């Protein structure tokens, strides 16, 4: 069969759906973070600027832009790997139709992640342009924040999609958002350096994949790469994807081909 690799065939379906429903998606993954950037980066940033001057050597806008970039990629990833997987396995059962074709559960899982990665890349790219226009991206290295944010998105999507395939209902999903995604969004160095946190809380932030994604993005956009640290952050994120991948190929197979 001389055709696209199996994972891309899964992606094709997402593209067809997206062409019809892109407005809502674009709003949540692009317009919302831009509004945050305007309100926090410019509004609150103006106040910060007047009191303390700079945060970590850059303007507050430049500090918060990479934080919002990575954090909104995480939110997009969480939203599009929990409920859509539940729809595929339980609600609409489309995944069951897919595995009746030559595609395997692992192709479906991989295609789901690929789609999250693509969307995160597109959203991050658009956000980066706006942030740069506002003066929030001082370094041309900033372009590297796009793949960094996408990698961060996958670090969340891989385990969350794997987990979603183990569930019979979506009861736990809002809990994951409220007790996982939202606290990470607030306390992983998005809006202020984690050195501001009480010492006992700092290790929690460091354990959060989002902190690693934000640090990676921030080193890129502010043009202050610490190569060893960047390699460490990348390794953590790749590790999350790898662990998620192993788990996800297992949970998808167990759910769809018992």
């Amino acid at each position, binding site marked *: 069969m001389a055709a696209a690799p199996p994972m891309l*065939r899964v992606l094709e*379906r997402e593209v*067809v759906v997206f062409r019809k429903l892109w407005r809502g998606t674009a709003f949540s993954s692009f317009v919302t973070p831009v509004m945050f950037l305007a309100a926090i980066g410019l509004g609150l940033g103006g106040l910060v600027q007047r009191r303390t001057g700079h945060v970590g050597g850059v303007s507050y806008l430049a500090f918060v832009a990479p934080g919002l970039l990575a954090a909104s990629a995480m939110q997009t990833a969480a939203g599009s790997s929990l409920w859509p997987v539940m729809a595929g396995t339980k609600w609409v*059962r489309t995944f*069951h139709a*897919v595995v009746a*074709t030559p595609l395997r559960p692992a192709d479906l899982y991989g295609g789901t992640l690929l789609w999250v990665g693509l969307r995160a890349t597109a959203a991050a790219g658009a956000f980066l342009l706006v942030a740069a226009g506002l003066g929030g991206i001082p370094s041309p290295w900033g372009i590297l924040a796009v793949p960094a944010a996408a990698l961060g998105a996958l670090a969340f999507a891989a385990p969350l999609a794997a987990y979603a395939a183990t569930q019979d209902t979506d009861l736990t999903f809002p809990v994951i958002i409220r007790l996982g995604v939202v606290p990470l969004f607030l306390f992983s160095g998005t809006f202020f350096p984690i050195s501001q946190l009480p010492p006992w809380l700092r290790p929690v932030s460091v354990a959060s994949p989002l902190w690693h994604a934000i640090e990676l993005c921030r080193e890129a956009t502010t043009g202050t790469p610490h190569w060893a640290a960047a390699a460490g952050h990348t390794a953590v994120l790749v590790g999350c994807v790898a662990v998620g991948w192993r788990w996800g190929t297992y949970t998808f197979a167990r759910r*769809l081909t*018992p």
Partner: protein
Amino acid sequence: MCAPPLVQGRALTKRFGTYVAVDNIDFSVGRGEAFGFLGPNGAGKTSTMRMIGCVSPVSGGELRVLGMDPALQGASIRSRLGVVPQEDNLDTELTVWDNMVIYGRYFGLPRSVIRERARELLEFVQLGERRHDRVDPLSGGMKRRLTIARALINQPELLLLDEPTTGLDPQARHLVWERLYQLKLQGITLVLTTHYMDEAEQLCDRLVIMDRARIVAEGSPRGLIERHSTRDVVELRFVTTEERLAAMPRLDGTGERVEMLPDRILVYTGDGDGTAEVVARDGLGPASVLVRRGTLEDVFLMLTGRTLED
């Protein structure tokens, strides 16, 4: 049969933990045949179908589909199968047309081929007019027809249908049967499960009756009726229970077998009209006498019992 069977199971078994869903069954399906798995809910029909469809690993025994081993060549087998599942799993975010196109892409078919086939297949299931509609508002019968059309996009040699008409109204059922019959005439091998006896009689050349994970009988619908039941059945209804009880001993010997039910007496006989005459002569005074042909339902109830199992 000289050609090798299209599907063959030997001592085929499926376990989920300690629960045995399919217990040591043997069967084979020849090319061009319409083969049925008949049985009550929970008999193991769907588990068997899922193993044939290569979406459920075999726990024991041997299974060959299109001459291949599902454990080793699942994807190759699936590329030549069409599957109509028990529960509709059409993509509700797509239109009728896109459901066909995207499904074709899962098989890796080129778009031009898909377009041509999708047009023909939607006409075949009488959904040509609805191609731009969304799937959700379609009726149950239309959704089932669309699922059948979708399953044919890869021109399968073998079509698996799990309870193809459950939940459909009579018109929709007959339309589906008629379309499936057309497919059979085109040489497509059909394997279906059903708990509707009339469906099995309409569609199947050969069938097995499953009960509690095992196969309890096998044959053609006619053959099964001849072997396990009788050509005719005479149904006698009485006004009161006392009359029914009184009639029972006097019916001994009127047929090959007499069965008393809470509301009527069934006399299984080779000659229904003859038996009805005897009953009339004896002056048993039933309120009504119905002579009918023996059906698969009689065979089925006789083999799997009348008690409800859930």
